């Protein structure tokens, strides 16, 4: 396989295990997001791919080549740091062509490349400016341009959006994703922001407590999280304590519901959690015809924010959120008795 392979990688700092036995394989040209809360080991894993940290155990390969013992400056990578780490003593142009200078490219070659990259990043003509004259967003573009100057094989970004304003972030996420697809470069992004990961990634790796909890396509992880940690980390989820009633059915309070996802992993009689996503559950007035897969409840709050309407329903002590578009509006008010429909295809079973 020609992509990026992480094989049994473990990293210990003294007695602390930062990354434990991580095994991952990615196709070349993919965009991969390491997602997780702070301290989960995602940055350490990225730094091991960069060569800034040495794995305690395991190997990292790219394109069939073992990189584990290759020092960082010989790895052919481009990295964007969380703080951007732009050299304050160099101009924008000199920053961008630093790697070319190290490798002895001629001045004219460097100038041409700096111009080309700045055009690509839509920052033309700023070569001679000093870093302190740039805004946060411009600095990020320069940092990206600098990392890409020598067309590296692997492009690494450590929390690249954290230094930007919220409104700039979304635009840059889309821009970065487009750029990556255009260049077809294998890219690894570390982030704690699930929207960022969902926006950009081909493949998301959810990490927690030094381990990989789940990896897969964004939709896969969103629809079929392996446990309640992943479910809670990616998107909002409704969780009900439940018991397996049959191989594909669970009992929630008095109601029994069919479940389409992951039910086979659990034995009948086992205590589990039933998970649904807010946009896949529907609220109907109690007076309407009762749908098949449903539980009873009472509306506790309605939050109308124009584009969507969120209905909070109290179902026997458990709160369910339903997010609807105005055209599905069931016309209910706080205090109304309702039925909450959870179609089998929207239901997943998680370990309790």
């Amino acid at each position: 396989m020609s992509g990026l392979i992480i094989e049994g990688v473990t990293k210990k700092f003294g007695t602390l295990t930062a990354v434990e036995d991580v095994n991952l394989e990615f196709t070349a040209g993919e965009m991969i997001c390491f997602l997780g809360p702070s301290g989960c080991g995602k940055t350490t894993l990225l730094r091991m791919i960069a060569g800034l940290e040495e794995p305690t155990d395991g190997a990292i390969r790219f394109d069939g080549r073992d990189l584990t013992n290759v020092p960082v400056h010989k790895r052919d990578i481009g990295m964007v740091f969380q703080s951007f780490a732009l050299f304050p003593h160099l101009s924008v142009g000199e920053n961008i062509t630093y790697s070319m200078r190290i490798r002895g490219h001629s001045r004219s070659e460097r100038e041409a490349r700096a111009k080309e990259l700045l055009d690509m990043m839509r920052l033309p003509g700023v070569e001679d400016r000093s870093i302190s004259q740039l805004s946060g967003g411009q600095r990020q573009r320069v940092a990206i341009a600098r990392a890409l100057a020598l067309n590296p094989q692997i492009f690494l970004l450590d929390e690249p959006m954290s230094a930007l304003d919220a409104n700039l972030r979304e635009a840059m996420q889309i821009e970065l994703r487009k750029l990556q697809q255009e260049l077809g470069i294998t890219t690894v992004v570390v982030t704690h922001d699930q929207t960022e990961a969902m926006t950009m990634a081909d493949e998301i790796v959810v990490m927690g407590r030094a381990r990989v909890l789940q990896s897969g396509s964004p939709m896969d992880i969103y629809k079929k999280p392996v446990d309640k940690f992943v479910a809670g980390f990616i998107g909002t989820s409704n969780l009900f304590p439940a018991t397996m009633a049959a191989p594909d059915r669970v009992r929630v309070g008095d109601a029994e519901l069919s479940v389409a996802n992951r039910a086979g992993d659990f034995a009948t009689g086992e205590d589990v959690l039933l998970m649904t996503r807010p946009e896949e559950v529907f609220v109907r007035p109690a007076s309407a015809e009762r749908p098949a897969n449903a539980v009873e409840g009472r509306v506790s709050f309605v939050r109308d924010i124009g584009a969507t309407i969120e209905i909070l329903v109290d179902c026997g002590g458990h709160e369910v959120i339903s997010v609807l578009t105005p055209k599905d509006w069931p016309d209910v008010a706080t205090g109304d008795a309702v039925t909450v429909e959870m179609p089998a295809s929207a239901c997943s079973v998680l370990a309790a």
Partner: protein
Amino acid sequence: MTLLRRLYLALFAIYLLGPIVVITAVSFNAKRFLAFPPRGFSFRWYAEIFVANDWFASLMNSLIIALCSASLSVLIAMPVAYSAWRFGLRYAKALFAFGVAPFILPPVIMALGFLLLYTSVGINGLMINVIIAHAIFLLALPLVTISLGLESVDRSLIEAGQTMGASGWVVFRTVILPIAAPFAFAGFAFAFVLSLNEYIIALMTVGFTVETLPVKIFNALRYGYTPVIASIAVVFLLVNITVFSLIARFSNLPRILGAQD
């Protein structure tokens, strides 16, 4: 309140600048005897510094000693500050503490120590003696400024350099040195100025063979008023101001002096 503040600032400025104004005025005195307000106006006492052989020789001695000792001081300080910062070596940190100590103690103690050292090995009165003595005595200055400079190098800059193909020595040359250099220069300049003005160590190490300007001035003071001293004081003050302005121009003076950015 504003009035009180203005009054205080005015008094402070008068107190600080008063003696300097008087000495400047006196330096332009046309007469050989001391008079303030000055009688007449002339540059003769400035010319005297360069014309009178003995004064000029002392000036050159002082300049050579200051240049060499400041350079030596930076050379000694650089590896210590670098190892303490880059690798956190405990040994380097201990050396650092030893290097700062001479500057904190009353200088006469170090002066006596150098005197004992040089007489006990029998090497007396050479210019190199005072150069080394000053380099050690003033070592704290480049140590502290270089450390400040190194601390201003964000460690991710080093890593960024490495990811772009720079190895250890190249990172030092292309990233660390350019950022820390203004601070090393500041350390050099501080050491230079203080060496130029230093009296007791120069006296005790080479006072009878290589006369530095402060030593010569003191010797002259004992025999009553010498008008050249006033012009030398003004020249020294101007040299000091120039050097510190250069530091302010090329690195961050408030930061070196401990303010936060």
